[in-house]
């Protein structure tokens, strides 16, 4: 049985962990075997954060993804796409949020924010989706739901639209935020055509 590996990479505070939680719960509901790993040691302090989701109709073994293994990489932030591209397997897909968060070394002027990341990834990955999920989330009224926009695109890229994601979202977010999160998810699905 094929084992599928999905890597979500972002910056602490971007909601990668919630996106991973919703994704894995949806997969479990749909009858997949799932394991998930979170690397969140210092996420509250603006560090780089990843969530690893491994799923299969058969058995799943390692809960964590290493270099050259991910079927899909979702980069919640532009320069994180380059940092984590090594984890994508050759022939894998990438979803990149065209959105930039300055790290402290950039804020203090020790580094410049890299120019050309998107172009570099496009040159090297055939199946590459790039758009600004933050803009879409802002249009919906809350920039924070960019994680659901990106999750929507990921679900489309995984061909898993048939799962009842509305229910999963309602089960996992506070009632007053469910609607906007669901809308964001659908917007994200539409962004991949």
């Amino acid at each position: 049985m094929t084992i599928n590996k999905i890597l979500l990479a972002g910056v602490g505070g971007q909601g990668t962990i919630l996106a991973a939680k919703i994704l894995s719960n949806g997969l479990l509901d749909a009858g997949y075997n799932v394991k998930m790993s979170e690397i969140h040691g210092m996420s509250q302090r603006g560090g780089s954060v990843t969530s690893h989701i491994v799923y299969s109709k058969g058995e799943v073994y390692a809960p964590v993804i290493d270099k050259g293994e991910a079927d899909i990489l979702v980069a919640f932030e532009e320069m994180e796409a380059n940092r984590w591209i090594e984890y994508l397997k050759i022939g894998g897909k990438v979803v990149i949020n065209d959105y930039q968060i300055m790290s402290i070394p950039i804020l203090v002027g020790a580094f410049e924010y890299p120019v050309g990341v998107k172009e570099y990834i496009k040159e090297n990955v055939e199946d590459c989706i790039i758009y600004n999920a933050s803009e879409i989330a802002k249009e919906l009224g809350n920039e924070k739901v960019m994680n659901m926009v990106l999750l929507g695109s990921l679900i489309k890229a995984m061909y898993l639209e048939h799962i009842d994601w509305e229910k999963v979202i309602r089960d996992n977010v506070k009632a007053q935020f469910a609607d906007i999160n669901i809308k964001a998810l659908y917007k994200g699905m539409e962004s991949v055509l």
Partner: protein
Amino acid sequence: MKKFLTGNEAVARGVYEAGATFASAYPGTPSSEILKEIGEYREIYSEWATNEKVSLEAAIGSAQAGMRSMAAMKVVGLNVAADPFMSISLPGIDGGLILVVCDEPGYYSSQDEQDNRIFAEFSNMPMFEPSDSQEVVDMIKDAYEISEKHKTLVTLRMTGRICHSKSPVLFSDRSEKDPEKISKEPKVPLPAAMVGMFARVNKRTKDLTEWSNNSKYNFIEYNNKDIGIISSGVPYYYAKEVFGDKASYFKIGFSYPMPVEKIKEFTNNVKKVIVIEELAPYIEDYLKNAGIECVGKDAFVEAGLNPYSGEYSVPMLKKTFFGENVSYIAAKREFVVPRPPALCAGCPHRGSFYALSQIRKKYDTIVHGDIGCYGLGAIPPFMAVDNVVCMGASISMAHGSQTSFNRRGINKRSIAVIGDSTFYHTGINSLMNTAYNKGTPVVCILDNKTTAMTGHQENPGSGRLLAGEEVEPFVIEDVCASFGIKNITIVNPTNLKESEDALIKAVESDELHVIIFRYPCVMKRLTDKESKDFYKPNKVKINNEKCIGCKVCLKLIGCPGLEFDKEKKKVQVNSACVGCGICMQICPANAIERAGV
């Protein structure tokens, strides 16, 4: 019902289902979430201990009262708790007692990646090693049975990967337990009693070896018998993913006493034996001592890898055993900009470290740091810490270095920097020793009223218990005064002048000084009193006419609330700002003002 749980959540579930009633822990990555999760179950009394030693001792006491009890700690926490841990082996205990210790191959948030499996053998007490969340729950229930039957502490040794990975767990109901009968025989390790205790421990180890050889947690899966893999923990799954049914497996889930007889049965049935285990060659050495030939750490070394440090992975096994190099797209070097963890916008430590870094420019000092967020004071832009060893060590080290400087006539000041939680953990003892022995260092206690680094757990000074109940916070200055310390200053670290003045006064004196930099962590849920005393939200703004774009603010304090606008060539305040006002105090052009909101 099945639920998707992390290993840490599964510990809580297991302890709950096993009918335990007492849990104690000191927070530390990767173990911190365990007690928080246990705290959700009202049937279990849970408390944050001031350190790992007292947490284990409290759990021992509760188990000796006959109740199922537990303590949880991170990898190096067991060093702190080693005294009660080692000492409980001989006398044993009447009630059920488990210790959950979370090792951390890869030392993501620990100062060491010691392999605590060695502690099981060292202490002669049994150890379980789960590979996923379901095993965590199952093993905890059996661990309590073993603990009560054999009157011993039982350790569940996890690794960070298991703590923070989710997998499905089948829920069962809680089984309430009647308290165990307490024996009348004293459990006191006096020399006369020791002979009997040794005999009991030997019998226990013999009985548990038999249990180990028959345990369902030590199981064999026969496939192709050309290769036989022996593994434990999460590496077992890496092996399964890489070798599939091309190998047979011996999975060790109960690793002390080691199931040597059952392993021999397995190794006699396979041609080549491979041991796959992270960190120390623990299983490998057991096999070799039992005369079993096997391939272990050397195979990884020959493949150019370091198998003694860090985590194993699927590609590591592919490279070592199949010579396969997993190919991937290289990250473009010049695009890799570091994204290190930083002090939060508004973090009061920023003021303390800025003041300290300024003092270090003017005076000859050595700064001994401690474990926690203030470890971030050691990296740019502050570079304000010279060495860090372990919890609470800053004050004892500063006492030692200052004493030696003084005796040699070296005019240098020793400064200790420690947080509030670390102070309560072991620093308090170091300060007592320093004061008693007439030590003269400068001791800076960064009191942010919470255990910030590990996720804002309560502590004696935070004003709350684990369950949220508000209590009277400990008063650090009163503790210091009771040690006979005369020079105690309390400053607001977001006021740089006040902070620097206090430091100058202390550094220029030749007496023991304690400076308490008091301001609650920006992430803390404040108590009612704290909301009145701190954080009056009042963001700052840049006066664009005055800003000369010199970036001094950015370079000196590295605050995530400030950024440089390349087009305007001016600094801008972003949404992360909480208005601590530290940047206003260092701007050479006076261009940062209160925004009035």
